[in-house]
């Protein structure tokens, strides 16, 4: 049963499990249903709803808000799971229509996670891209990286969106809900696996610990598998489907502002909320606004560009790496005092971990640890491994540890590149520490990163790290072990440097020592969790 905050009372459970007891819905589905009913209860205070609850096939996204909920027909592949009746408990300020509001709430299906890659989408263009991408992964990647270079050096610096003008005069809302429950609004893409989402979920828990009601808004389609996470217990989760009508948006925004005492807004990855920050600040300048930024995305600009564009409505930009701090302050001229560097790391674990002893006679072992995703480029690691194996007489072993969307391609390429006899595939739940303990060198082949947590883990276990020179990896990885992002250059340089490391244990130790020194330097900076907890404390006043 969902432990999320409910803004309604259950009139008829309809077997949904909303009132506890037997349920026809999974925990995730109950979480989505509660989220949808909260949303409708909030924008139509005091009203009573009769909701038909649908379930879709796997891969279909939920439709919980917006136009779809008011259309009384549905796709033939939807099943009516139950019908529930609830009444909004949100206080009303005027007489309320007692008529039932009919809703159709489509919970979608399992395995419907957002962020499909360009080659996973339907259509002829995607099919062509898919063929090119999987037919010649390295050549295709070389083109992609070339495009990124072009954006980074030519297009992005000349395509700066105009920054929103400062809000010069704003008086607090005449009738804010001063007595409402103190709340912090959080903006996320979705509630599913991802680095930014993991951090967002942690901040939600910190807000709750600080005594605030977390109001969690999502703006991207997803099955929201993380809606069941314990960090969201007691939070008000509103999974939105966009676009919504202007009237509905006004109702939602005003309800958020007047029904709760909103003390702050923390935007993680949520374009909709980013663009509404000026409105919140203009309505009530006492509301503190902060965003958390992770990586620069050269091709799309990503949330960093959005953060810069709306900087005048954001009191503080929280950045997790020195590279981002410098980009914001030095390249984009965001005032220094409005950018806070507070990295995310697990330094305590680094200190506590014992140093691994190498098993005598073990061949030099090179590992890849990470999601098997486009960003991490496991296919590039495999190509590098094949090249290294060919160019050295020394025995070398590889471990590729991870799971994800590119698992099938990875297995195929292991055979194709002739690595089956020297490469071991490992996947979760097997411990990453086990893999690192078996390794001499960790190779990070990603085309973009913030600060990789695996580098912290590797350093703790005396493993040297060789990485693409992307994001803020230079803040963690030795200068001797940073290699270009472009695939052909990566393979050439990474093979050369690996051979040098294989030939000299002293060099390997120097690299690990530099990792330790860099981690120690990062440790001098405030840690993201402490920084955020302190920030929220300040929002209590």
């Amino acid at each position: 049963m969902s432990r999320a905050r409910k803004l309604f009372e259950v009139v008829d459970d309809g077997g949904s499990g909303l009132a506890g007891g037997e349920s026809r819905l999974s925990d995730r589905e109950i979480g989505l249903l509660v989220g949808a009913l909260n949303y409708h209860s909030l924008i139509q205070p005091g009203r009573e709803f009769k909701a038909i609850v649908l379930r879709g096939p796997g891969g279909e996204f939920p439709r919980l808000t917006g136009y779809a909920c008011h259309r009384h027909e549905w796709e033939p592949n939807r099943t009516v799971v139950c019908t529930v009746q609830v009444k909004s408990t949100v206080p009303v300020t005027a007489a309320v229509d007692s008529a039932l509001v009919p809703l159709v709430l489509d919970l979608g299906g399992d395995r419907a996670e957002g962020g499909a890659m360009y080659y996973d989408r339907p259509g002829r263009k995607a099919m062509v891209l898919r063929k090119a991408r999987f037919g010649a992964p390295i050549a295709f990647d070389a083109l992609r990286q070339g495009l990124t270079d072009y954006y980074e050096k030519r297009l992005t610096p000349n395509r700066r969106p105009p920054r929103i003008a400062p809000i010069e005069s704003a008086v607090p809302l005449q009738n804010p809900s001063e007595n409402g429950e103190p709340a912090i609004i959080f903006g996320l893409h979705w509630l599913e696996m991802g680095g930014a989402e993991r951090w967002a979920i942690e901040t939600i828990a910190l807000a709750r610990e600080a005594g605030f009601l977390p109001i969690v808004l999502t703006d991207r389609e997803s099955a929201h598998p993380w809606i069941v996470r314990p960090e969201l217990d007691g939070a008000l989760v509103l999974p939105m489907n966009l676009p919504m009508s202007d009237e509905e948006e006004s109702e939602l925004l005003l309800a958020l502002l007047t029904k709760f005492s909103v003390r702050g807004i923390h935007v993680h990855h949520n374009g909709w909320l980013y663009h509404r920050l000026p409105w919140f600040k203009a309505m009530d300048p006492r509301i503190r606004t902060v965003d958390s930024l992770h990586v620069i995305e050269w091709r799309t600009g990503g949330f960093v560009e959005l953060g810069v564009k709306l900087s005048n409505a954001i009191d503080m930009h929280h950045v997790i790496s020195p590279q981002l701090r410098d980009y914001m302050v030095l390249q984009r001229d965001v005032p220094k005092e409005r950018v806070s560097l507070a990295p995310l790391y697990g330094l305590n674990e680094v200190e506590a971990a014992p140093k691994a002893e190498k098993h005598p006679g073990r061949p030099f072992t090179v590992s890849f640890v990470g999601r098997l995703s486009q960003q991490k480029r496991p296919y590039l690691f495999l190509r590098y491994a094949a090249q290294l194996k060919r160019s050295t007489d020394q025995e070398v072993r590889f471990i590729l540890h991870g799971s994800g969307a590119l698992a099938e391609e990875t297995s195929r390429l292991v055979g194709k590149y002739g690595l089956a006899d020297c490469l071991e595939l490992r996947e979760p739940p097997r411990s990453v520490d086990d893999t690192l303990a078996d390794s001499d060198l960790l190779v990070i082949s990603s085309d973009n990163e913030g600060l990789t947590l695996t580098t912290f883990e590797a350093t703790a276990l005396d493993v040297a790290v060789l990485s693409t020179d992307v994001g803020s990896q230079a803040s963690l990885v030795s200068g001797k072990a940073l290699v270009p992002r472009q695939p052909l250059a990566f393979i050439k340089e990474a093979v050369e440097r690996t051979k040098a490391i294989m030939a000299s244990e002293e060099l390997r130790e120097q690299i690990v020592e530099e990792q330790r020194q860099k981690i120690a330097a990062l440790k001098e900076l405030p840690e993201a969790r402490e920084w955020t907890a302190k920030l929220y404390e300040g929002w209590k006043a």
Partner: protein
Amino acid sequence: MTDQVAAVVVTYNRVDKLGRVLDSILAQTRPVDRLIVVDNASTDSTPQLLSVYDDDPRVEIVRLDSNTGGAGGFSAGMERAYERGADWVWIMDDDCYTDENALEKLLAGHAEAEAGLGRKVPYSCSLVRYTDGSICEMNNAGPTWDWGRLIAQGQRNVLITNCSFVSVLIPRRSIAKYGLPLVEYFIWFDDMEYTLRISAEGPGVQVLDSVVTHDMPENRGVNFGDLNPGNAWKFLYGARNESSYRWHHDDKLAWLQFVVTTYAWMVKGGVGRRLQLRVAKQILAGLKFDPKPKMARSVR
């Protein structure tokens, strides 16, 4: 948090003056947070001298494997300072003695100039004197057409287009935006190119109250009329580098003016035909030579 200032000194076989230079930097009224000494693979007793500073946590020695010239040395030192998180990098040669308040005045003058101009200033430099107190002929900064703009406001800062690498204070922002000096220049014109490059959004300033002394063997500027077989190697770098800059990053008329002036100086100085021809070859080489700046990485 207070801004971090890293001083960068590039040295090559100058052990007799280097100690005094470093001591003057370490004794500043506004202390430096870090002093990075780039040893350009000196072959004299420089390493022994530098070992005296081993116990000073502010001092960091970067010993290069080979002599990379002033350009390579400054680039390496500035890169290290940037990677160490310096907010300001204060660069100078190994024969530059700093007055005790040179840095304090530079920082104050830089801030004052930014306030007066209402924009960021890409760099500021000191007034460079010779050992006898007169102006150092070699290190005269180039004034802008409106050089007196800040003086008219009551400041003691002059607007300049370029300067040499003798006590130049460079904010982190300039390095982040425009990168490091061109290593490929090796020597000569690297400072001009760099200060011109980072002035894309407006000129720098010379802070008249910040004073340093350049202890050169002789107080005179140089021009192509001084060219002789003994010093030709330096002039040849200069010819290639300036030709490259004028052709690729200035305008073709400026390039032509540079060629004509160089020729005129050589004729006036009585430089032989063979040397003139070698200079001409380097000027032509500059048309193909167009290195791209390396960007610094954010590490801390």
